[in-house]
């Protein structure tokens, strides 16, 4: 059972000060994992929203029930265009997410580095 001193010590040294040491570890393990998971989920949701599976399965099925030759031709063309369009969209989104992940990885060391650089430059000036 914890004593009073123990509790207060835990608050000060583990919760407050200790967290500074725990921060970098968390950032590149648990935190990064969380970020990647949410990016993955968001992408998955996007893919479902764009219904790639359905569109590929129905690639040769004419749109709007137009079963004539021209209908089929236009439909296949349209499906191709739409699939390409959506493919581009999902790629762009994926890139944006990737940039986010890179920013996450680089942020603490870069910020710290630039802070020290700035400090040094300030002193030199």
């Amino acid at each position, binding site marked *: 059972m914890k004593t009073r001193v123990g509790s207060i010590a835990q*608050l000060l040294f583990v919760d*407050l000060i200790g967290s500074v040491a725990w921060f970098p570890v968390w950032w590149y393990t648990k935190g990064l994992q969380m970020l990647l998971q949410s990016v993955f989920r968001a992408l998955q949701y996007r893919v479902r929203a764009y219904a790639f599976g*359905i*569109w590929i399965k129905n690639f040769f099925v004419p749109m709007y029930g137009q079963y004539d030759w021209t209908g089929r031709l236009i439909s296949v063309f349209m499906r191709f265009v739409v699939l390409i369009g959506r493919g581009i969209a999902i790629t762009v989104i994926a890139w944006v997410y990737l940039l986010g992940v890179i920013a996450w990885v680089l*942020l*603490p060391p870069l910020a710290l580095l630039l802070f020290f650089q700035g*400090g040094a430059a*300030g002193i030199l000036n």
Partner: protein
Amino acid sequence: MADPQTLEQQERNFDAQRDLRELQRTEGFKENVGLPSVDGLLVWGAPIDDFHLRFRKIRRYTNIGFHLTLIILSVLTVAAFLYRLFQQESIQALWTAEFWFAGYPEVTLFWLGLFLDAFIIFRLFEYSQDTKRIPGWGKSSVWLHHYQETAKERANFRFDISPYVDDSGWEVVASAFRLAKNLKRNEIGVPHLFAAALSSQTGARFLMRVGLSFDRMKAPIADLINKGASGDGIPPLSGEAKRVLISAYENARLEHRRHVTAIEIFLEAFKQDERIQEVFNQVGYPPEHVIHVAEWIKLRAKLREDHDRFVRLAMLKPKSAMNRSMTARATPLLDRFSEDLTLSARSGYLAPIVGRDREMGELLRAIESGQRSVIMVGHRGVGKQALIEGLARKMVAEDVPPELFDRRLVSINIPQVIAAGDACLAAERFFAILQEVKLSGNIILALQNIEALSGTGSGPLDLAEGLASELGRGPFIVIGTTTPENYSKYVERRSLGSRLIRVDVPELNPDAAIRVLMARCGAIEYKNKVFFTFASIERASVLSDRYLHDRALPAKALDVIREAAVLARKKRGENAFVTAEDAATIIHDKANVPVEAVSQDESQKLLQMEDHLHQRIIGQDAAVVAVAQAMRRARADLREGKRPIANFLFLGPTGVGKTETAKALAAEYFGSETNMIRVDMSEYQDATSVYRMIGQAGDERGGLLTEAVRKNPFSIVLLDEIEKAHPDILNLFLQVMDDGRLTDGVGRTIDFTNVVLIATSNAGTQFIQDETRKGTELERIKTMLLEQQLKGSFRPEFLNRFDAIIVFKPLSKDDVEQITWLMLGRIEKQLEEKGMGFRVEDAAVALLAEAGYDPLFGARPLRRVIQDRVDNQLADILLKGEAARRDTIVLDRDGVMKVEKAPPIG
């Protein structure tokens, strides 16, 4: 073939689980060290005293303060950065390397700020929540499986559950501690935890649903928490209390809750302390009742979670009539005559379905099976519509077989389609709609009350036949609904029937209906601004099942609670509780059967029924006692459920009070003499007259008796002179007396369980008179009647079904004299209304009784005598105006009527 490795693994798992359960039962609980579980050895590790309870708060405020400081610092760095930026000549400076690397202190701080932001993100994720999430919460089944597998590795480690208890739970623990400390108990017991939980917000919600006030529980709970040894100082958690907390954790984990909350502690404390259960039982709430309420609260939480998931998935479903693969086609005509159920479900207009997993599974299976189109057959109100709406929600969430994937469910309004006035136009419209459905290819048709298609079939044109032939060819799916009667009448033997797979939707039992009501009552509560107690929902379900027969569960119970909500709001205003009595009142009004709890007035009336009946019935003690006893049994709910309240056979000569007894009972108990359905059996002497009584197939009016009982199920059914009826008709009553129901010509089942069935008969009159004259005892006469005399008139199985066969003895002269008094009393009452008095001398009564007595006809001639000798004279006096108000009319010893003038006023 199954993989042997997997089998072995499963076996091992099974063994491990069994060992675990064994451990839970023995070691853990007995020695009070902890409970083995997949997380390890569960223990309560947090100290409970004033300091530590306060320290929890201190820690939280310290963290909040720390985070706020960090956030302010971060904002300041941004502010400083902006300040530096605006110092520049132009904002373009942002794009120069010089600005960034010149070593401005503000820019340097900005970089520090960014680092700080990362630190804040970390702190907020890791330290802003006091309560840890229970391991496994929100994890995939693969994770859970792995976790289960590795349970043994953790088995020897203690697992402190206290960090998983959320604020509401800690509040309960803290107030239990304060309670025990203030009462100077030597430990915190289960009753302290329970009392604390009861006075928490969760407890209040709980009590509200149970329909109990806190004040009512206060005294017995106070008794409980004062029990046990007293002691000074800081009371520790008792072994039992720890067990409650640990079980609460275990319970929360099994139910996939995020944290341990007050409700788990409340429920575990309730379950583990029999004294607490006794306290609730004593005030009329058995343990199952309380546990049901807990289920209700959890059901609501689950519905909320399901709703969140549904909303997320619904976003993926197209908003328009077009499917995602865009193969569909515009359907302008269909859109005019239909409602898009998937669209309604997507917008959240359709309620989720509760239960009915079997029917839904059958429905989806039938669609998958290849023949595809389905007809749901069930009585009105069983929830066929709810099933269709549930399917629409499943389709929105795409939780359906491939046949239904990326489609929409459209309900055609059949009456609107066929309301063309011209049958040909209706058919044209219908086929055009089917053509659209076929071409579009993404539509599932819902045709509710599909029999309406057959209804238009005048002559050669029948839409049902048309639909059947289209179904034979067309690649589209139809889901129809109909009732069993209409199914056999319009669908089964026709070509449509062969194209549709039948899915039966049986009526819900009251227990399942309660769950539906629990799920649906939220909207009603919101609309009426009232709250349902569990008892009201339970009563609505059970009583509507027993007394309302026109519709099925759960619809009829839903109607009842809807009306009960309005009633409660009108009676007691907003925020009132809907009680069981409100539900009973609605059932009473709908079914004409008093189902409310027996009130004080009524129990007095029941207890004194003999006295009241005696005021009208002279000389038939045995009959009066038998009738009164049967009524008391019925109202105390001790009778057998599936029979009429009572079946009586009154035997005896004419004019001795058989019908009068029935009338007196109707007046006394059923409200008025008119609450009696009187059937003269002499009108039913041939076999065909049975149709008059129960109605004929195809004739919606029903029969005389069945309709009367259907409209007024709580009444007396008097079958007068039953020996005169045709034997076939008597057979009909065999079923009524045994099962309490009768099926009328239309096929409706009429409920006879709330009637008192009284049959009267003159059979054996001569025998009764002869034997009475000889002075034979009544009991003996009855035995002899049953054994010999009645054999010719009634079959033994018929006589056996009566609860009591009561022999009315012939009236003696004394009886007739008393009856004379009674009859004259009625005249006195009439005159009283005219403001006149009425006095009769004893000798006059004796004279009338003498003249009116006839051993053969009982008291019947008496009525005529009184009419001749009293009423006639009285009419003359009144018409001539010989008597004025305040005068007294006197019938003297010679039977002559005089007027005594009242003395002048003053």
